[in-house]
């Protein structure tokens, strides 16, 4: 199982803060997961097309070709604005 989290504006655009997916493909990358999620409907296709989105796997920021393994926690979020 892969847990996928969404934050801030992206969470609102998707109306979804969290998904649990079964880890079907053994060689899923972050980019592959993103394409898969974009197939869930118009809101998903539009919101996840944003090139500024950041992705973290197990709470570490990663690049698009990072592999995802069963049990991973994957998060997508917009540029940060704390401080």
């Amino acid at each position: 199982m892969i847990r996928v989290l969404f934050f801030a504006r992206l969470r609102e655009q998707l109306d979804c803060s969290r998904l649990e997916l079964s880890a079907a493909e053994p060689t899923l990358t972050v980019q592959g997961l993103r394409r898969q999620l974009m197939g869930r409907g118009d809101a998903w296709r539009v919101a996840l097309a944003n090139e500024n989105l950041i992705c973290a796997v197990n709470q570490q920021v990663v690049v698009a070709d990072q592999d995802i393994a069963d049990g991973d926690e994957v998060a997508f979020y917009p540029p940060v604005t704390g401080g």
Partner: protein
Amino acid sequence: MTGQVNVSVQTGDFDPAGLQRALLEAGPGAGAVASFTGLVRGREGDGRLEWMELEHYPGMTEASLEQIATEALERWSLGAVSVVHRVGRLLPGDHIVWVGTCSRHRQDAFAACEFIMDYLKTRAPLWKKENWGDGQRWVEARGSDELRADRWRTSQKGSRD
């Protein structure tokens, strides 16, 4: 690298004086303490902020702040570092963030404090939503913050003099 790190992400308020005392206890013998306090600004031209909401990524936000504080300890000679960030709903004038660094010398304390703020602003998973009376909106990330953070990549190595 021997300094102490304190990181907290919390909904409640904090007391800068108490945090500074704790910082000095964690890094005794320091001659210099630099601190930064960020507060909610309530005005922008004619606009008045009703409230701000800070969202975070539980677990990763704390880990990210710890990573930034640890990087500061590696780059400068510091006795201790403390980073406290609030989340949840905040009102104008409320504290948002406190960063304190102590060191034997002021240049290390200053540089580390500013480095932590620049990295926190551009790397720690925290997002502000504001209500200026005409509805809520997510705050946009600023390119100038990214540029300020980039300065630390090449220049500004720790000084020990």
